[in-house]
């Protein structure tokens, strides 16, 4: 009897846990076969409200949905918090088998899973980012790749940081060394362009989601003299909280982070995937299921730099940022890290 009760209790707890997860909004289930809306499913490593990587794509999908005329035209299903690749892989396969038109694997770590599932579901289109690999060299034709040229906005934020800094000490909080390198390299290049002698202190937390360590890293940078901070990935919410508390300027990337630090967030480099998604939809509708690698840049309007309108920013800073963007667009500036900058 007692054993039965134990088993029952365990099932009850697991059910409770299942109820709470909410990582799949199941929008896709209510689709009307008659209307045949376009159906997109997305699997992402963090939350749709991470004010960073995942939110940038989710917001773009919602923008495309609105543009197309709402849920009747475009259905979006999502699985968030898929930081375990095995879970993500199962979700990608599930969505493909449910007949979604486009399954987006929104994380560089999902590459193997995408190609594996794409080979089994050749009639379904997949998209994978950050990547430039569509799998063409291994004979796969139904995968799009996408990525952001994050060093462009990194460069502009670097220019802004150098102009804002009084101490000439700037702190950078990265997640994992390899992934954030592009943005940080561009950032350092931008700083050195304006102030070659400024000190850029870089620290990595070793995690995308360790907000506690990111917050402490912000404290450390401030104590080490930094008066402007930047950083990437969803971990930065902890750091922005600290910047806010200490009145230290923050330069954001990936999504709009002003809500978290209305008085300290000066700029945001925003990833706008809407054009990329819209183009994928149009290609899929014409029967082209993959093969294109997209890159977000200032030139194609995939990257935008937005200033916080609620705080006073010197005109010369805004002007310098605009000039930097124009220089990048025209090719006058190549925002890559030079050896002497390192």
């Amino acid at each position, binding site marked *: 009897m007692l054993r039965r009760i134990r088993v029952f209790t365990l099932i009850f707890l697991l059910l409770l846990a299942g109820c709470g997860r*909410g990582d799949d909004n199941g929008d896709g289930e209510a689709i009307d076969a008659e209307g045949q809306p376009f159906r997109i499913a997305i699997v992402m490593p963090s939350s749709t409200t991470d004010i960073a990587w995942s939110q940038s794509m989710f917001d773009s999908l919602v923008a495309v949905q609105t543009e197309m005329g709402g849920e009747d035209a475009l259905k979006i299903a999502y699985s968030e*918090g898929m930081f375990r690749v095995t879970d993500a892989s199962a979700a990608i396969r599930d969505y493909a088998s449910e007949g979604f038109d486009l399954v987006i694997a929104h994380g560089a770590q999902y590459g193997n899973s995408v190609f594996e599932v794409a080979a089994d579901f050749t009639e379904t289109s997949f998209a994978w980012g950050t990547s430039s690999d569509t799998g063409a060299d291994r004979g796969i034709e139904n995968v799009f790749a996408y990525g952001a040229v994050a060093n462009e906005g990194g460069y502009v934020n670097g220019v802004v940081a150098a102009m804002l800094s009084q101490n000439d000490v700037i702190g950078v909080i990265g997640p994992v060394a390899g992934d954030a390198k592009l943005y940080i390299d561009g950032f350092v290049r931008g700083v050195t362009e304006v102030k070659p002698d400024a000190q850029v202190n870089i620290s990595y937390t070793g995690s995308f989601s360790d907000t*506690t360590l990111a917050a*402490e890293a912000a404290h450390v*940078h401030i104590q080490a003299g930094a008066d402007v901070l930047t950083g990437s990935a969803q971990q930065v919410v902890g750091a922005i909280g600290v910047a806010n508390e200490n009145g230290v300027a923050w330069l954001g990337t990936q999504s709009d982070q002003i809500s978290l*630090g209305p008085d300290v967030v000066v700029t945001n480099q925003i990833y706008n995937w809407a054009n990329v998604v819209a183009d994928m939809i149009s290609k899929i509708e014409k029967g082209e299921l993959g093969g294109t690698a997209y890159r977000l840049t200032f030139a194609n309007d995939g990257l935008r730099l937005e200033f916080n309108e609620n705080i006073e920013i010197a005109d010369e800073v805004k002007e310098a940022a605009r000039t930097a963007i124009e220089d990048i667009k025209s090719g006058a500036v190549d925002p890559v890290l030079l050896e002497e900058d390192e």
Partner: protein
Amino acid sequence: MIDELFTISTLIGILHSCVRLATPYLFASLGETFGQRSGVLNLGVDGIMLMGAFFAFYAVFEGHNLWVGVLVAIAVGILMGLLKAFVSVTMQSLQGISGIGLYLFGLGLSSLLFKTLIGSVEGVSGFRQLAIPLLSDIPGLGHILFNHNALVYLAYIMVPVSWFVINRTTLGLKIRAVGHNPEAADTLGVSVNGVRYTTLMIGGALAAVAGASLSIGLQNVFQENMTNGLGFIAVALVYFGSWRTVGVLGGSLLFSLVNALQLWVQALDIPVPSEVAVMMPYIMTIVVLAFTARQIQKPAALARSYERGE
């Protein structure tokens, strides 16, 4: 470059970071110590922390006083502790697995509530730095120990309080007795289940305050899964500290010290690869665990359900 690490201001900075970083670990691992000393392993600490973090944040977000936020977290923590006690003590489910269930429950429910009630990442004004008059003026030491927010002080106050409860009170004697030999305690008239319910509620309350210390003390935001597994490290720190409050304090400080050190090493551009730097706290934990494992006297009845004989 390496010289910069040994300047007075940097050393003070490292120790200041260390004291602050240890806060959530201290609350959570002291709470877990209560449960484990009474023989219940609770792997759901991280889930309780997330619930505490969310409810404290939500109360403050809705305009309530910061201490109301802490009290709400404590109430939620007690409820989570009760749930764990019901499953592990009354229903006698396997403690490890039910703890994982509790963790997933806390992770899922806090995310769901966050999505439903708040919707986007927002900031609040949390506990401000509170320099203790006179003491904070002591050169060096003043900044390291007496220039933090109220929850940091509370975490350190909980160390002697927990020690006193476990080692110098009747309740503490019952907790230790139930953890070592529940049958004997039962024959002496101690309610084994009653004691375990109590320790799990205390543990739940402290774990929830650990979460609150993140969301309205150290970061002043709530984000889904913001503890990032910190609760599991807190459970490890109880083993690390050999189930003693002072050991738990030492473990929390050592882990936080190495974490603070690695952040400073990177910020000062000392040529250590960042991958190695972020591994340092974990390497240190494994080394210390390896050396202390033999001397550990764990509660004999840990992770064992108690069923009264006929």
